[in-house]
């Protein structure tokens, strides 16, 4: 179907909301509670637009696109209302962007930038909520929370861990873990879904803090090295230090839709660990010494050849790995079969 957005004819799909159609066509409308995965909440009212034939402002995340609909996202009335919402969010939180980990990755910043808000019109001085640093992997700063509800929806509806909810009332409404426990004392399993979906710096991956600005990092797509689900990952890499500093679930990952578990999201320390093996080692008199590749390969080949000669090829066993790639499993069994002439190759699928 076709709809008009800001005077341009655009394609929209059956079942798409006005916001989704606009975003799909490259038209930005501020939106802070809506996220593809958790759907529309109609909570933040940042996404208001004018639609011909409908009275007043409409939240574009909750109105379905209809053939011939005429939408204006940038009338003065719409922009004013959007500005008011964003302004209020900035006023009621401690959004000191300079030091915020989310800087450059923050949807509230994006909205403020788009609307040309340099600083909030009022600033409350009394915002001083305790920061919850108890959990191993997620840093919780309620001073930055805009009560969009995404984390609540994601924890309950997406990963279904049922930990986060809104607690308290009125002005002091805030997110709580279980019955208002510290995150570490709650039933949270540290999957990090809430941190990935939080539009601002209220929920942050603790281990990434201070490790580099998002725009300085390369994003590389990979697959989780742990269990067999095969969750798609985005690795954020600091080229200067050659380190992975953050991992996100790929939102278009076919098996995971952006979800990860604690291991896939936070279990990357082993990659850059100081104990990694860096050179071949040869044992002499019960002690390892560093060796060159030439030495090591020479020794491996001469030993295997001698043993094969003396006891026959079936006296050699090769154990392959369920943690290396297909290509490397292939070359290993090919080596064993063509080089050692035995079918003694297995891996630990059984264990």
């Amino acid at each position, binding site marked *: 179907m076709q709809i008009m957005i800001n005077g341009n004819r655009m394609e929209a799909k059956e079942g798409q909301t006005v916001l989704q159609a606009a975003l799909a066509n490259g038209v930005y409308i501020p939106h802070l509670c809506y996220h593809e995965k958790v759907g529309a909440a109609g909570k933040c009212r940042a996404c208001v637009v004018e639609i011909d034939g409908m009275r007043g402002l409409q939240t574009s995340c909750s109105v379905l696109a209809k053939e011939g609909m005429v939408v204006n996202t940038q009338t003065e009335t719409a922009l004013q209302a959007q500005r008011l919402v964003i302004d209020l969010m900035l006023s009621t939180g401690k959004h000191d962007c300079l030091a915020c980990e989310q800087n450059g990755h923050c949807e509230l910043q994006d909205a403020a930038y788009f609307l040309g808000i340099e600083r909030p019109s009022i600033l409350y001085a009394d915002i001083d909520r305790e920061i919850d640093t108890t959990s191993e992997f997620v840093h919780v700063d309620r001073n930055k929370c805009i009560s969009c509800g995404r984390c609540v929806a994601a924890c309950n509806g997406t990963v279904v861990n049922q930990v986060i909810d809104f607690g308290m009332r009125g002005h002091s409404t805030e997110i709580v873990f279980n019955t208002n426990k510290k995150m570490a004392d709650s039933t949270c399993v540290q999957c990090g879904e809430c941190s990935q979906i939080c539009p601002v710096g209220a929920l942050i991956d603790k281990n990434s803090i201070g490790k580099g600005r998002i725009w300085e990092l390369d994003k590389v797509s990979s697959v989780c090295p742990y269990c067999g689900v095969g969750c798609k990952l985005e690795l954020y890499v600091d080229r200067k230090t050659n380190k992975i500093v953050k991992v996100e679930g790929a939102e278009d990952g076919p098996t995971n839709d952006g979800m990860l578990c604690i291991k896939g999201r936070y279990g990357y320390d*082993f990659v850059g660990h100081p104990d990694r093996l860096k050179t071949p080692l040869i044992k002499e008199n019960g002690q390892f010494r560093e*060796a060159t590749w030439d030495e090591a390969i020479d020794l491996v080949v001469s030993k295997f050849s001698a043993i094969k000669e003396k006891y026959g090829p079936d006296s050699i066993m090769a154990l392959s790995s369920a943690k290396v790639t297909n290509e490397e499993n292939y070359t290993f069994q090919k080596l064993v079969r063509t080089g050692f002439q035995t079918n003694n190759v297995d891996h630990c699928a*059984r264990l």
Partner: protein
Amino acid sequence: MTNDIPGIKKSDVAIIIGSDTSEGHPVIAARIKQAVMEGTLKLIVIDPKEIKMADFAEIYAQHRPGTDVAVLNGIMHLIIKNGWEDKEFINERVEPESYEALKAEVANYTSDYVEKISGVPAAKLEAIAELFGKAKVGALYYTMGITQHTTGVDNVKSTANLQMLCGNMGVPGGGVNPLRGQSNVQGACDMGALPVCYTAYQPVATEAVQQKMEAFWGVKLSNKPGCTMTVAFDKAYEGEMKAFYIMGENPLISDPDLHHIEHAIDNLEFLVVQDIFLTETAQKADVVLPATTYAEKDGTFSNTERRVQRLSKAVNAPGQAKHDWEIHQLVANKLGLNWNYGCAEDIFKEITQCTPSYAGMSFERLGRKGLHWPCPTADHPGTPVLHIGKFSKGLGTMFAIPFKAPAEVPDGEYPIYLTTGRILQQFHTGTMSRKTPGFNRLAGPHVMMSVEDAEALGVGNGEDVKVSTRRGSIVTKAFITKRMPKGTAFVPFHFAEAPANILTNNALDPIAKIPEYKVCACKLEKA
């Protein structure tokens, strides 16, 4: 898995048996929980431990460890008795004699008999049979809780029996779905890292296959099936196996009856270990070769739903570490084999030429979404659901499987069932996961036990307990939980300082050679 992960949305009922899904496969668990919350799926959980998934279940049945066949036979008995089986599917797609044999066998498994063996109340078994038997599309998920038994193959066959009986094979949202425990177990099997077959399960003993591979590789090949790992360790123990080349595995933590394994390894004349850390096993090696991690390389993994996905190099490898395939190439060329791969993609191209199920794939086609094998041609869309319309072998075979008790069951001296497995925050032998300090703070070694057993012992949470079996003993911390039934204890196997596999029984399934990690007999003492 015969079916795909997104297909979870299409099931009406699912059975989880022998899988602590939210610990072992958390993202699949999330998808199952989503479907339950959205009301499209009703869940049945069958497990000795009252796992987290049981909280989302319509019916939860707690059976004794190792009694899976009895429970599944009992369910099938009731389904047939009540006429809930899928007659059309059975008529069209199952060998009639095999169905008759199954029917005769399961007829013995009355609810009362099953209750006696498994401890599952008759009424509960009947409720399960009704819910599952009447479902339009039923799925079944399992992991090592089904396979790591001396009756592992029997257990697996029983799950297939049930799914054929209910006509759940070849249906989106149905299927028999083993959840693979490691990122590329599926791929390691597909790539022929198995003693009996080349890639895509082409048997080494079949003459036509041997000739094809000899022509393809240009080398004479042996048609004699090789040794499985478990048998190879026995042979090393006896002095018959002389040398091991181990890549990326740590059998000194992961294998059953560690004392036996250690002996076997000490007996070797030569041991090469290729890995990323100096693991417990690598410390025993004569030569250690430094390899790279997933983040340092290009290539592919095949996940539990047979989806082949790409990984891309993110960081540089440390020091002189090399990719596993580069090391293989060095060895091969020293042996005079003249290999010439320049990158992972070169190897993948070769794989597609000798692997029918991968033949239609290329790095470009895999893109961001991957492809499910079989994908035989360049225009084939891949196969998310296996066995639609027909089994690859023609008619499906059912198997009459009698219940057999585990190799070791509790007795006067060792009165408690011991079962082992994984926990969420750690992985396998810990080589990777234990390098993240936060994981270690969240999850250290422990023995999970019931409130009753803890009271009888007089131990409190976090206090030291000695767990002993006929093979050895460990001392570890008590983790007391309502989720464990009385008389059963659970030890995670990730920890070198309290290795569960000192305790486990190396009795094997006679066909699959899988050790019985999931059941043995132990005693608990205050330490």
